[in-house]
Protein backbone atom coordinates (compact mmCIF):
# COMPACT_ATOMS: atom_id res chain seq x y z
CA UNK A 1 0.00 0.00 0.00
CA UNK A 2 2.77 2.42 0.98
CA UNK A 3 6.22 2.70 -0.49
CA UNK A 4 9.30 4.64 0.45
CA UNK A 5 10.33 7.17 -2.20
CA UNK A 6 13.18 9.59 -2.59
CA UNK A 7 12.37 12.34 -5.07
CA UNK A 8 14.53 15.35 -5.76
CA UNK A 9 12.48 18.47 -6.35
CA UNK A 10 14.27 21.67 -7.31
CA UNK A 11 17.50 20.26 -5.88
CA UNK A 12 16.03 19.25 -2.53
CA UNK A 13 15.51 15.55 -1.73
CA UNK A 14 12.14 14.54 -0.26
CA UNK A 15 12.12 11.12 1.44
CA UNK A 16 8.68 9.90 2.39
CA UNK A 17 6.54 6.84 2.69
CA UNK A 18 3.59 7.44 0.39
CA UNK A 19 0.55 5.46 -0.77
CA UNK A 20 1.29 3.79 -4.11
CA UNK A 21 -1.79 5.41 -5.58
CA UNK A 22 -0.59 8.93 -4.75
CA UNK A 23 -0.24 10.98 -7.93
CA UNK A 24 3.01 12.83 -8.50
CA UNK A 25 1.15 16.15 -8.65
CA UNK A 26 -0.23 15.52 -5.15
CA UNK A 27 3.22 14.59 -3.86
CA UNK A 28 4.50 17.90 -5.19
CA UNK A 29 1.60 19.95 -3.79
CA UNK A 30 0.69 18.17 -0.56
CA UNK A 31 3.87 16.39 0.56
CA UNK A 32 6.51 18.85 -0.67
CA UNK A 33 4.12 21.79 -0.19
CA UNK A 34 4.98 23.30 -3.57
CA UNK A 35 1.63 24.62 -4.75
CA UNK A 36 2.85 26.48 -7.83
CA UNK A 37 2.10 23.31 -9.82
CA UNK A 38 -1.62 23.44 -10.52
CA UNK A 39 -4.44 20.98 -11.07
CA UNK A 40 -6.76 22.17 -13.83
CA UNK A 41 -8.73 19.38 -15.47
CA UNK A 42 -8.97 17.40 -12.25
CA UNK A 43 -6.51 14.76 -13.32
CA UNK A 44 -7.76 13.91 -16.82
CA UNK A 45 -4.38 14.75 -18.32
CA UNK A 46 -5.64 17.20 -20.91
CA UNK A 47 -5.04 20.71 -19.54
CA UNK A 48 -1.28 20.78 -18.91
CA UNK A 49 -1.52 22.95 -15.76
CA UNK A 50 0.37 20.29 -13.77
CA UNK A 51 3.31 20.16 -16.22
CA UNK A 52 6.68 19.79 -14.49
CA UNK A 53 10.07 18.66 -15.75
CA UNK A 54 11.12 15.09 -15.06
CA UNK A 55 14.89 14.91 -15.48
CA UNK A 56 14.58 18.00 -17.64
CA UNK A 57 11.66 16.83 -19.80
CA UNK A 58 8.17 18.29 -19.64
CA UNK A 59 5.59 15.79 -18.37
CA UNK A 60 2.12 15.99 -16.86
CA UNK A 61 2.47 15.20 -13.17
CA UNK A 62 -1.14 14.00 -12.93
CA UNK A 63 -0.38 11.13 -15.32
CA UNK A 64 2.30 9.64 -13.09
CA UNK A 65 2.35 8.12 -9.65
CA UNK A 66 4.77 9.55 -7.12
CA UNK A 67 6.38 6.09 -6.82
CA UNK A 68 7.27 6.27 -10.52
CA UNK A 69 9.39 9.35 -9.82
CA UNK A 70 11.45 7.55 -7.15
CA UNK A 71 15.12 8.37 -7.63
CA UNK A 72 14.41 10.97 -10.27
CA UNK A 73 14.75 14.71 -10.39
CA UNK A 74 11.78 17.06 -10.76
CA UNK A 75 11.81 20.76 -11.54
CA UNK A 76 8.71 22.76 -10.76
CA UNK A 77 7.87 26.41 -11.36
CA UNK A 78 9.42 27.23 -7.97
CA UNK A 79 12.75 26.01 -9.32
CA UNK A 80 12.69 27.92 -12.60
CA UNK A 81 14.19 31.18 -11.32
CA UNK A 82 17.78 30.66 -10.18
CA UNK A 83 19.11 32.67 -7.23
CA UNK A 84 16.22 35.08 -7.47
CA UNK A 85 16.92 35.76 -11.13
CA UNK A 86 13.90 35.15 -13.32
CA UNK A 87 14.17 32.69 -16.19
CA UNK A 88 14.13 34.64 -19.50
CA UNK A 89 10.70 33.14 -20.22
CA UNK A 90 9.34 34.44 -16.92
CA UNK A 91 10.64 37.91 -17.72
CA UNK A 92 9.20 37.73 -21.25
CA UNK A 93 5.81 36.65 -19.86
CA UNK A 94 5.90 39.74 -17.64
CA UNK A 95 6.95 42.06 -20.43
CA UNK A 96 4.32 40.77 -22.87
CA UNK A 97 1.44 40.46 -20.38
CA UNK A 98 1.31 36.78 -21.31
CA UNK A 99 -0.99 35.86 -18.44
CA UNK A 100 -4.31 36.97 -17.04
CA UNK A 101 -5.60 34.69 -14.27
CA UNK A 102 -2.26 32.86 -14.23
CA UNK A 103 -3.65 29.41 -13.53
CA UNK A 104 -2.08 27.83 -16.63
CA UNK A 105 1.16 29.82 -16.52
CA UNK A 106 3.26 27.48 -14.41
CA UNK A 107 2.53 24.53 -16.69
CA UNK A 108 3.18 26.55 -19.83
CA UNK A 109 6.48 27.88 -18.48
CA UNK A 110 7.71 24.41 -17.48
CA UNK A 111 6.80 23.02 -20.90
CA UNK A 112 8.26 25.94 -22.84
CA UNK A 113 11.45 26.09 -20.75
CA UNK A 114 12.33 22.67 -22.12
CA UNK A 115 11.14 23.59 -25.62
CA UNK A 116 13.24 26.76 -26.02
CA UNK A 117 16.32 25.05 -24.60
CA UNK A 118 16.88 23.53 -28.07
CA UNK A 119 18.30 26.97 -28.88
CA UNK A 120 17.21 27.33 -32.48
CA UNK A 121 15.02 29.86 -34.18
CA UNK A 122 11.49 28.61 -33.63
CA UNK A 123 8.66 29.57 -35.95
CA UNK A 124 5.28 30.73 -34.70
CA UNK A 125 3.77 27.47 -36.02
CA UNK A 126 6.27 25.40 -34.05
CA UNK A 127 5.59 27.42 -30.90
CA UNK A 128 1.82 27.06 -31.28
CA UNK A 129 2.24 23.34 -31.98
CA UNK A 130 4.29 22.96 -28.81
CA UNK A 131 1.54 24.64 -26.75
CA UNK A 132 -1.14 22.11 -27.71
CA UNK A 133 -0.86 20.35 -24.35
CA UNK A 134 -1.51 23.52 -22.35
CA UNK A 135 -4.96 25.06 -22.16
CA UNK A 136 -5.31 28.79 -21.50
CA UNK A 137 -8.86 30.07 -21.22
CA UNK A 138 -8.04 33.78 -20.76
CA UNK A 139 -5.45 35.09 -23.15
CA UNK A 140 -6.22 33.62 -26.55
CA UNK A 141 -2.51 32.68 -26.62
CA UNK A 142 -1.38 35.68 -28.70
CA UNK A 143 0.70 37.27 -25.93
CA UNK A 144 1.99 33.90 -24.79
CA UNK A 145 3.27 33.19 -28.31
CA UNK A 146 4.86 36.66 -28.47
CA UNK A 147 6.67 36.07 -25.18
CA UNK A 148 8.00 32.68 -26.24
CA UNK A 149 9.03 34.02 -29.64
CA UNK A 150 11.17 36.62 -27.94
CA UNK A 151 13.09 33.99 -25.98
CA UNK A 152 13.24 31.19 -28.59
CA UNK A 153 16.45 31.20 -30.54
CA UNK A 154 18.37 33.33 -28.06
CA UNK A 155 21.46 31.85 -26.33
CA UNK A 156 21.18 28.64 -24.31
CA UNK A 157 18.85 28.57 -21.33
CA UNK A 158 19.88 26.97 -18.10
CA UNK A 159 16.57 25.50 -16.88
Amino acid at each position, binding site marked *: *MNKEVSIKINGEVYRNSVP*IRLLLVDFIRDVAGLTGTHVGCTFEGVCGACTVQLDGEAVKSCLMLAVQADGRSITTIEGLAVDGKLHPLQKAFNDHHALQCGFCSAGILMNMAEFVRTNRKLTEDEIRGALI*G*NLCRCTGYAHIVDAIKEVAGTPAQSA
Partner: protein
Amino acid sequence: MYPAVIDNYDAPTSVQEALQAFANGGNSSFFVAGGQSLMQAIKARIISPKTLIDLQHVSELKGIQFANGAVRIGAMTRYRDIAADEGLDGAYQALRDAASHVGDRQVRNRGTIGGSLCWNYIAACMPPTCIGIGASIDLVSKKGKRTLLAEEFLRGPLETSRHDDEIVVAVTLPTPAKSSGSAYKKWGLVTDALPVAGVCAFIELDNDGRCQLARLAVGGLATGPRRAEAGEKALIGVSAIDASGISEAAGTAAASINTQSDMWADAEYRKTLIETLTREVVATAFVRAGRGKHS
Protein backbone atom coordinates in the same frame (compact mmCIF):
# COMPACT_ATOMS: atom_id res chain seq x y z
CA MET B 1 -10.59 11.09 -10.65
CA TYR B 2 -8.26 9.21 -8.38
CA PRO B 3 -6.81 5.68 -8.49
CA ALA B 4 -8.26 2.97 -6.28
CA VAL B 5 -5.87 1.46 -3.74
CA ILE B 6 -2.88 -0.23 -5.37
CA ASP B 7 -1.26 -2.97 -3.28
CA ASN B 8 2.09 -3.39 -5.02
CA TYR B 9 4.36 -1.42 -7.27
CA ASP B 10 7.30 -3.05 -9.03
CA ALA B 11 9.93 -1.32 -11.14
CA PRO B 12 11.91 -4.17 -12.73
CA THR B 13 15.07 -3.49 -14.73
CA SER B 14 14.87 -6.48 -17.10
CA VAL B 15 12.19 -8.30 -19.07
CA GLN B 16 12.82 -11.46 -17.01
CA GLU B 17 12.27 -9.54 -13.77
CA ALA B 18 9.12 -8.00 -15.20
CA LEU B 19 7.70 -11.41 -16.15
CA GLN B 20 8.53 -12.71 -12.67
CA ALA B 21 6.83 -9.69 -11.08
CA PHE B 22 3.71 -10.51 -13.07
CA ALA B 23 3.85 -14.15 -11.99
CA ASN B 24 4.19 -13.05 -8.35
CA GLY B 25 1.46 -10.43 -8.63
CA GLY B 26 -1.21 -12.78 -9.87
CA ASN B 27 -4.59 -11.54 -11.00
CA SER B 28 -5.11 -7.83 -11.48
CA SER B 29 -1.47 -7.22 -12.31
CA PHE B 30 -0.88 -4.70 -15.04
CA PHE B 31 2.19 -3.59 -16.94
CA VAL B 32 2.46 0.16 -17.40
CA ALA B 33 4.53 1.61 -20.25
CA GLY B 34 4.41 5.42 -20.62
CA GLY B 35 1.10 5.55 -18.78
CA GLN B 36 -0.44 8.28 -20.92
CA SER B 37 -3.57 6.21 -21.54
CA LEU B 38 -3.44 3.58 -18.79
CA MET B 39 -3.13 6.15 -16.00
CA GLN B 40 -6.31 7.85 -17.22
CA ALA B 41 -8.11 4.51 -17.09
CA ILE B 42 -6.68 3.78 -13.63
CA LYS B 43 -7.76 7.17 -12.33
CA ALA B 44 -11.23 6.72 -13.79
CA ARG B 45 -11.19 3.27 -12.09
CA ILE B 46 -11.99 1.58 -15.38
CA ILE B 47 -8.93 -0.44 -14.38
CA SER B 48 -8.01 -1.07 -10.74
CA PRO B 49 -4.65 -2.85 -10.63
CA LYS B 50 -3.63 -4.63 -7.47
CA THR B 51 -0.07 -4.81 -8.75
CA LEU B 52 1.41 -2.27 -11.12
CA ILE B 53 4.57 -3.30 -12.97
CA ASP B 54 6.35 -0.26 -14.35
CA LEU B 55 8.51 -0.96 -17.42
CA GLN B 56 10.20 2.47 -17.48
CA HIS B 57 13.56 1.16 -16.19
CA VAL B 58 13.79 -1.85 -18.54
CA SER B 59 16.51 -0.50 -20.82
CA GLU B 60 16.47 -3.53 -23.16
CA LEU B 61 13.00 -2.37 -24.25
CA LYS B 62 14.20 1.06 -25.37
CA GLY B 63 15.75 2.41 -28.54
CA ILE B 64 15.76 2.04 -32.31
CA GLN B 65 18.26 -0.26 -34.01
CA PHE B 66 19.03 -0.51 -37.72
CA ALA B 67 20.61 -3.44 -39.58
CA ASN B 68 20.72 -3.41 -43.38
CA GLY B 69 17.61 -1.27 -43.50
CA ALA B 70 15.69 -3.59 -41.18
CA VAL B 71 14.52 -1.82 -38.05
CA ARG B 72 13.90 -2.93 -34.48
CA ILE B 73 12.06 -0.48 -32.26
CA GLY B 74 11.99 -1.36 -28.58
CA ALA B 75 8.45 -1.33 -27.20
CA MET B 76 9.35 1.31 -24.61
CA THR B 77 10.71 3.72 -27.23
CA ARG B 78 8.94 7.02 -26.81
CA TYR B 79 7.13 9.05 -29.46
CA ARG B 80 9.70 11.84 -29.10
CA ASP B 81 12.52 9.49 -30.03
CA ILE B 82 10.65 8.00 -33.00
CA ALA B 83 9.64 11.46 -34.21
CA ALA B 84 13.28 12.58 -34.14
CA ASP B 85 14.91 9.58 -35.85
CA GLU B 86 15.84 10.41 -39.45
CA GLY B 87 17.00 6.82 -39.98
CA LEU B 88 13.33 5.94 -40.50
CA ASP B 89 12.97 8.31 -43.46
CA GLY B 90 11.78 6.84 -46.71
CA ALA B 91 10.30 3.39 -46.24
CA TYR B 92 9.24 3.86 -42.63
CA GLN B 93 8.77 7.63 -42.44
CA ALA B 94 5.07 7.13 -41.65
CA LEU B 95 6.20 6.34 -38.10
CA ARG B 96 7.69 9.82 -37.78
CA ASP B 97 4.57 11.43 -39.30
CA ALA B 98 2.43 9.67 -36.71
CA ALA B 99 4.71 9.98 -33.67
CA SER B 100 5.34 13.70 -34.14
CA HIS B 101 1.65 14.57 -33.83
CA VAL B 102 0.47 12.22 -31.07
CA GLY B 103 -1.14 14.15 -28.24
CA ASP B 104 1.17 16.96 -27.25
CA ARG B 105 4.84 17.48 -26.27
CA GLN B 106 4.28 16.26 -22.73
CA VAL B 107 2.56 13.08 -23.95
CA ARG B 108 5.30 12.46 -26.51
CA ASN B 109 7.90 12.75 -23.73
CA ARG B 110 6.33 9.76 -21.94
CA GLY B 111 4.13 7.81 -24.37
CA THR B 112 5.58 4.74 -26.10
CA ILE B 113 4.95 2.79 -29.30
CA GLY B 114 4.46 -0.46 -27.36
CA GLY B 115 2.00 1.12 -24.96
CA SER B 116 -0.04 2.52 -27.82
CA LEU B 117 -0.18 -0.84 -29.61
CA CYS B 118 -1.20 -2.72 -26.45
CA TRP B 119 -3.93 -0.19 -25.66
CA ASN B 120 -5.14 -0.12 -29.30
CA TYR B 121 -7.39 2.86 -28.76
CA ILE B 122 -9.83 3.52 -31.59
CA ALA B 123 -8.33 6.97 -32.21
CA ALA B 124 -4.65 5.99 -31.90
CA CYS B 125 -2.11 6.57 -34.67
CA MET B 126 0.45 3.81 -34.04
CA PRO B 127 -1.93 0.90 -34.77
CA PRO B 128 -2.84 1.80 -38.38
CA THR B 129 0.72 3.03 -39.00
CA CYS B 130 2.26 -0.27 -37.90
CA ILE B 131 -0.20 -2.24 -40.03
CA GLY B 132 0.50 -0.02 -43.01
CA ILE B 133 4.27 -0.37 -42.90
CA GLY B 134 4.03 -4.13 -42.39
CA ALA B 135 5.40 -4.25 -38.86
CA SER B 136 5.74 -7.38 -36.75
CA ILE B 137 5.24 -7.44 -33.01
CA ASP B 138 7.60 -9.50 -30.82
CA LEU B 139 6.06 -10.82 -27.61
CA VAL B 140 7.56 -12.73 -24.72
CA SER B 141 6.14 -14.52 -21.70
CA LYS B 142 7.41 -17.15 -19.30
CA LYS B 143 6.12 -19.73 -21.77
CA GLY B 144 8.25 -18.43 -24.62
CA LYS B 145 8.41 -16.01 -27.50
CA ARG B 146 6.16 -15.38 -30.46
CA THR B 147 5.90 -12.91 -33.28
CA LEU B 148 2.71 -11.64 -34.85
CA LEU B 149 2.05 -9.32 -37.75
CA ALA B 150 0.65 -6.01 -36.51
CA GLU B 151 -2.63 -6.79 -38.26
CA GLU B 152 -2.88 -10.09 -36.38
CA PHE B 153 -1.94 -8.47 -33.09
CA LEU B 154 -4.38 -5.56 -33.32
CA ARG B 155 -8.05 -6.42 -33.07
CA GLY B 156 -11.13 -4.35 -32.22
CA PRO B 157 -10.74 -1.12 -30.23
CA LEU B 158 -8.96 -1.80 -26.89
CA GLU B 159 -8.44 -5.43 -27.95
CA THR B 160 -5.22 -7.16 -28.95
CA SER B 161 -3.95 -10.73 -29.23
CA ARG B 162 -1.63 -10.15 -26.26
CA HIS B 163 -2.16 -12.46 -23.29
CA ASP B 164 -2.16 -10.76 -19.89
CA ASP B 165 1.18 -12.34 -18.96
CA GLU B 166 2.91 -11.31 -22.19
CA ILE B 167 5.12 -8.30 -22.77
CA VAL B 168 5.51 -6.69 -26.17
CA VAL B 169 9.27 -6.33 -26.48
CA ALA B 170 9.71 -4.80 -29.91
CA VAL B 171 8.21 -3.69 -33.19
CA THR B 172 10.27 -4.98 -36.10
CA LEU B 173 10.36 -3.97 -39.75
CA PRO B 174 11.96 -5.94 -42.59
CA THR B 175 14.68 -4.60 -44.89
CA PRO B 176 12.64 -2.57 -47.38
CA ALA B 177 13.03 -2.62 -51.14
CA LYS B 178 15.18 0.30 -52.21
CA SER B 179 12.38 2.31 -53.78
CA SER B 180 9.84 2.24 -51.03
CA GLY B 181 8.19 4.97 -49.04
CA SER B 182 5.44 5.45 -46.50
CA ALA B 183 3.34 8.24 -45.03
CA TYR B 184 0.68 8.70 -42.37
CA LYS B 185 -1.84 11.46 -41.89
CA LYS B 186 -4.73 11.93 -39.50
CA TRP B 187 -7.67 14.28 -39.36
CA GLY B 188 -9.13 15.48 -36.08
CA LEU B 189 -11.45 18.24 -34.96
CA VAL B 190 -8.60 20.51 -33.85
CA THR B 191 -4.83 20.52 -34.48
CA ASP B 192 -3.17 17.28 -33.35
CA ALA B 193 -6.46 16.07 -31.85
CA LEU B 194 -7.29 12.40 -31.53
CA PRO B 195 -8.01 11.36 -35.10
CA VAL B 196 -11.53 10.91 -36.43
CA ALA B 197 -9.73 9.03 -39.20
CA GLY B 198 -6.09 8.27 -39.95
CA VAL B 199 -4.52 6.56 -42.98
CA CYS B 200 -1.10 5.03 -43.55
CA ALA B 201 0.24 4.18 -47.02
CA PHE B 202 3.29 2.09 -47.93
CA ILE B 203 4.42 2.01 -51.56
CA GLU B 204 7.13 0.01 -53.32
CA LEU B 205 8.13 1.04 -56.86
CA ASP B 206 9.46 -1.06 -59.74
CA ASN B 207 12.32 0.11 -61.99
CA ASP B 208 9.92 2.15 -64.11
CA GLY B 209 8.58 4.03 -61.11
CA ARG B 210 5.30 2.13 -61.03
CA CYS B 211 3.78 0.83 -57.85
CA GLN B 212 4.47 -2.91 -57.52
CA LEU B 213 3.38 -3.31 -53.91
CA ALA B 214 1.05 -1.18 -51.78
CA ARG B 215 -0.37 -1.35 -48.31
CA LEU B 216 -3.08 0.95 -46.99
CA ALA B 217 -4.25 0.91 -43.39
CA VAL B 218 -7.05 2.91 -41.84
CA GLY B 219 -7.63 3.92 -38.20
CA GLY B 220 -10.54 5.53 -36.38
CA LEU B 221 -12.88 2.62 -37.12
CA ALA B 222 -15.30 0.86 -34.78
CA THR B 223 -13.97 -2.42 -36.18
CA GLY B 224 -10.41 -1.55 -35.17
CA PRO B 225 -7.60 -0.60 -37.56
CA ARG B 226 -7.71 -2.51 -40.83
CA ARG B 227 -6.25 -2.69 -44.31
CA ALA B 228 -8.02 -1.46 -47.41
CA GLU B 229 -7.00 -4.26 -49.77
CA ALA B 230 -9.20 -3.11 -52.65
CA GLY B 231 -7.38 0.22 -52.67
CA GLU B 232 -4.02 -1.55 -52.50
CA LYS B 233 -4.85 -3.61 -55.60
CA ALA B 234 -6.01 -0.50 -57.44
CA LEU B 235 -2.61 1.12 -56.86
CA ILE B 236 -0.60 -1.62 -58.61
CA GLY B 237 0.87 -0.23 -61.83
CA VAL B 238 0.09 3.36 -60.93
CA SER B 239 2.94 5.91 -61.08
CA ALA B 240 3.54 9.08 -59.09
CA ILE B 241 2.36 11.37 -61.89
CA ASP B 242 -0.86 9.40 -62.47
CA ALA B 243 -3.08 11.68 -60.39
CA SER B 244 -6.31 10.12 -61.62
CA GLY B 245 -5.01 6.60 -60.87
CA ILE B 246 -4.17 7.65 -57.31
CA SER B 247 -7.55 9.36 -56.88
CA GLU B 248 -9.37 6.31 -58.19
CA ALA B 249 -7.50 4.02 -55.81
CA ALA B 250 -8.29 6.34 -52.89
CA GLY B 251 -11.96 6.23 -53.82
CA THR B 252 -11.85 2.44 -54.07
CA ALA B 253 -10.13 2.22 -50.67
CA ALA B 254 -12.71 4.43 -48.95
CA ALA B 255 -15.62 2.62 -50.59
CA SER B 256 -14.34 -0.73 -49.31
CA ILE B 257 -14.20 0.34 -45.65
CA ASN B 258 -17.18 0.04 -43.31
CA THR B 259 -17.37 3.31 -41.40
CA GLN B 260 -19.44 4.13 -38.35
CA SER B 261 -21.36 7.25 -37.36
CA ASP B 262 -20.47 8.76 -34.01
CA MET B 263 -20.41 12.15 -32.31
CA TRP B 264 -17.37 13.28 -34.32
CA ALA B 265 -18.36 12.28 -37.84
CA ASP B 266 -21.13 10.42 -39.59
CA ALA B 267 -20.30 7.36 -41.66
CA GLU B 268 -20.44 9.12 -45.03
CA TYR B 269 -18.22 11.99 -43.89
CA ARG B 270 -15.73 9.52 -42.45
CA LYS B 271 -15.52 7.88 -45.88
CA THR B 272 -14.79 11.27 -47.43
CA LEU B 273 -12.04 11.83 -44.85
CA ILE B 274 -10.53 8.41 -45.57
CA GLU B 275 -10.60 9.05 -49.32
CA THR B 276 -8.91 12.46 -48.99
CA LEU B 277 -6.31 11.25 -46.50
CA THR B 278 -5.56 8.20 -48.66
CA ARG B 279 -4.95 10.39 -51.71
CA GLU B 280 -2.60 12.59 -49.70
CA VAL B 281 -0.57 9.84 -47.99
CA VAL B 282 -0.25 7.84 -51.22
CA ALA B 283 1.09 10.92 -53.02
CA THR B 284 3.59 11.56 -50.20
CA ALA B 285 4.62 7.90 -50.08
CA PHE B 286 5.28 7.97 -53.86
CA VAL B 287 7.59 10.98 -53.45
CA ARG B 288 9.48 9.31 -50.60
CA ALA B 289 9.77 6.03 -52.52
CA GLY B 290 11.07 7.92 -55.54
CA ARG B 291 13.85 9.47 -53.47
CA GLY B 292 15.03 6.02 -52.42
CA LYS B 293 15.52 5.06 -56.05
CA HIS B 294 18.28 7.61 -56.56
CA SER B 295 20.10 7.08 -53.29
